[in-house]
């Protein structure tokens, strides 16, 4: 049930920067924007994106397991699941080839968390969905084509 901002501070000893900022009312749109990687979300292709994320030359890998539907009845809600078998995986990103913006989401996986993510994304039209993984400083990806019967971006 809803928690007031005041409750954040009493609920735990070590809290994230995000919750601290939210609690103290410091998190205005500008502050939030500062933490969010605008450049990454504006990248138009995978090479650019990887460069923005501080890497080079992403390699295709069979050690990334991508589970998704073959056909999405509604492109507004496409369930996807990524599991990385690459040792040292510390981030998993989802890229949608023909969306207005390539990057959909980027997850940071701390030590102790399994390198597996399930979520739902919007697809404008039938295209490839990429799972981009960073492991031990290098980038790897796999792709799956998902067919969309009704595009999910423009309502």
């Amino acid at each position, binding site marked *: 049930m809803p928690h007031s901002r005041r409750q954040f501070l009493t609920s735990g000893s070590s809290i994230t920067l995000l919750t601290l900022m939210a609690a103290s009312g410091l998190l205005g749109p500008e502050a939030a924007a500062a933490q969010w990687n605008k450049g990454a979300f504006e990248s138009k292709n995978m090479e650019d994106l990887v460069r923005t994320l501080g890497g080079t030359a992403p390699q295709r890998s069979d050690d990334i397991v991508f589970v998704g*539907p*073959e*056909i*999405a*009845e*509604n492109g*507004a*809600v496409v*369930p996807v699941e990524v599991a990385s078998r690459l040792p040292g995986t510390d981030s998993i990103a989802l890229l949608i080839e023909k969306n207005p913006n390539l990057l959909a989401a980027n997850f940071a996986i701390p030590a102790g968390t399994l390198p597996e993510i*399930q979520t*739902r994304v919007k697809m404008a039209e039938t295209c490839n969905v990429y799972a981009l993984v960073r492991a031990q400083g290098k980038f790897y990806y796999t792709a799956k084509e998902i067919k969309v*019967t*009704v595009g999910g971006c423009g309502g």
Partner: protein
Amino acid sequence: MSKACRHLVRWACVAFTSGLMVSAAAQDDHAVREIQRYRQMLQEANPAELSELRGEDLWRSLRGRNHVSLERCDLGLGPGRLEGAYSRLPRYFADTGKVQDAESRLVTCMMTIQGMTLEEATRDWHSPNSDMEALVTYVAGLSKGYAIDVPLSHPEEARMVAAGEELFFRRSGPLDFGCSSCHSMPGRRIRLQELPNFLDSGSARGAMTQWPAYRVSQGAVWTMERRLIDCIRQMRWPQPEYLSDVVIALEMYLQRQANGGVMQAPGMKR
């Protein structure tokens, strides 16, 4: 070409064509199966659960002129008894002298217990994330696992079911269309959307046990009334009023056809 040769060519053509036809049908089946798989993946977490949470909050909130909650509202099983109530609706209520469904009954309570006007209670009922949407989803969710058991013990109930049945079969409007035009035969589809056959209890149960349902294309939960009113609009009939006898009669007929089906709502639909 010799007779035998022509015969061979004819058989080859038939084989080839039926091969094509089989593969086209197989493709259709494959698409249907894949879409079912897609729907299955979405069952894991239905955004309708969020509407249930909001609905519970509204149920308990002190609202209206009388500044009280809905917790004494009687949905047919006694004041405040919600488990299984939705599965026994629509039904006759002595205090209003009418057959009512979950939505109209909630509105009765909002007006009589909480002191709201009809306008206040039904404000924006058709808008995504409306109060009515949340309340009905919450109430329906509390019938999950219960069998649909719409009664036929009061003359008014019989009258409404009969009216609903007549409405189901009546063809009207500029398209000379009725519910039965699409929903009274097995195996019907509009593009990839399967159409329930309400004359078959299995198919009727499959449909009615899923409503209210989160409609992915709308990003909102639609109640059965909302769905029926929209169907009627799509048939180019005049749109009935929210909570009117027309909608409740049709709803009651369809629920009766689905008697025995185990409620799974809120469901998830395209």
